[in-house]
């Protein structure tokens, strides 16, 4: 009876129960805000937990993958970069936000492409904008910025107006072409 009412009020009850069964109770940090439930994972256990979420909790769709740079964020104590994965269960419309932190100087995460093909370009964009490398990604290249670009523009220490790269791009003249 009590579990039934719990499930009716908390849409995440079944997922949290499965996670507690597989990984033990209260292993991962959690926080709630509005209707978002966030789960904090260490990078070493990321793929393991994502696999369980996909296969056992039926989060079939990776709705969104992105990163944030918290350099200079007021009162920040965790790692500089955080990557978020928004998972969606297409049957129950349940959403779960997975967060994992990586720090300078060599931010590195395992790739989620083996789990969801859709992670391919989204991880490339995170690499392009933040310089976070995803090990095991099949084709990790810059996607939006040109290949010659050396900085990572969405990092907080990169200025809004750039560092003059635009004027220094290699130019192809008519004679060379």
């Amino acid at each position: 009876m009590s579990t039934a009412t719990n499930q009716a009020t908390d849409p995440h009850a079944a997922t949290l129960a499965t996670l507690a069964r597989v990984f033990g109770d209260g292993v991962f940090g959690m926080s709630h805000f509005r209707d978002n439930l966030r789960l904090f994972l260490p990078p070493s256990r990321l793929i393991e937990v994502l696999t369980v979420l996909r296969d056992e909790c039926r989060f079939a769709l990776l709705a969104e993958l992105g990163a944030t740079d918290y350099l200079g964020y007021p009162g920040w104590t965790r790692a500089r970069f955080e990557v978020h994965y928004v998972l969606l269960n297409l049957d129950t419309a349940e959403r779960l936000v997975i967060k994992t932190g990586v720090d300078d100087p060599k931010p590195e995460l395992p790739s989620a492409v083996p789990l969801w093909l859709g992670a391919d370009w989204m991880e490339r964009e995170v690499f392009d904008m933040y310089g976070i490398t995803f090990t095991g990604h099949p084709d990790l290249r810059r996607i939006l910025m040109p290949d010659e670009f050396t900085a990572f523009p969405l990092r907080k220490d990169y200025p809004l107006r750039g560092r003059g790269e635009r004027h220094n791009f290699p130019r192809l003249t008519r004679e060379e072409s």
Partner: protein
Amino acid sequence: MPANLLDEPEVEIGSKPFTWTLNFGPQHPATHTTLRLILELDGERIVRAIPDIGYLHSGFEKLGEHLNFNQYVTIVDRKNYISPPMNEVAWHHAVEKLLDIELTPRCQYIRVIIGELARISDHLLCTGAAALDLGAFTAFLFAFNLRELIYDVYEEMSGYRFHPGFTRVGGVLYDFNDRVLQRIRRVMESFPQVYSDMEKLLFRNRIFLDRLRGVGVLTKEAAISLSCTGPIARASGVTYDLRKDEPYLVYPEFNFDVPYMTEGDSFARFFVRMEEMRQSHLILSQALAKLPTGPVNVPIAEKFPLPDKGTVYNSMEGLIQHFELIMPNRGFESPKNEVYAAIESPNGELGYYLVADGSQTAWRTRTRPPSFIHFQVFPHIIKDHLIADVVAILGSLNIIAAELDR
């Protein structure tokens, strides 16, 4: 359609050492915007397609970290510029979820109305341009004629024709007046005729159908694995629609269906979009009939919305409120927290991952752009098709390059 290898009985697949490369774009009439494909071809059969994007990258997400929640609406307009009001609704939906603002009923209806108008406008462009690329020019003209009437609505409601910038934190720029409603009714009255014209021109157009049916098949499993949403996923049998499954605004009050097909080919994507326009028309007619009266913005005492000019010039509270919000370092405070909120845009799930640091400017505005996510489907479904099918599949995916590159 897929190349039939039985036409070349002597040739074993993979035994040919010579493939050639064709550069498609960045400027090509059938890409409609700026995107580039590098096609590796075996004769006319596509062995591999490598999309090269980023030509329109303009740092919209970086700008979001420097413009406040109201200013950034002008930038979101320019992402999917085929349906700007839907982007605005999505953006302020995320902001209002972060700030925990409950909109007034009239404002929620107005946002549904501008959103559904934008959906019709977007689908008209997508289906019309798909027809144009495949040689059916007349249907395109009918579609664009109706889009002009929708632009008239934008112009009347906000003063801007292309990028209305209409929503604000906690409300909208102006309330709907009678002239706006009259313009919307004109769209509503014209729509059935345009739809039936397009239907007559396209649904029995032999060339059009032959070039779409069985072309670019995306299976249900692939659609889910590739993070597809919206009409593209629904054409492959995924029936998910945020308006039904995770209702926002006042969508639960309307009767409408979520059309879907199971074939997953370009024709299914085209057909789902056509049917969605009819459902949007249905939603619009219900919303116009039920449009409640009352205030459109949340009360200015809640310190979120910009008061309208009448209040600013004629009342002390309005004047104080205006200065409080416009002056730097004043105004409302946002929670030091982050939120993901999404709505159903014409192309699929349009979400914002919003990180706030307590000020009126976001710390991070990550867009979940449906065009970006859907374009990575392209190299998967173009394999083994002919060059001519590139145009058919691109048209059915509805890639908006400004949203693709941001």
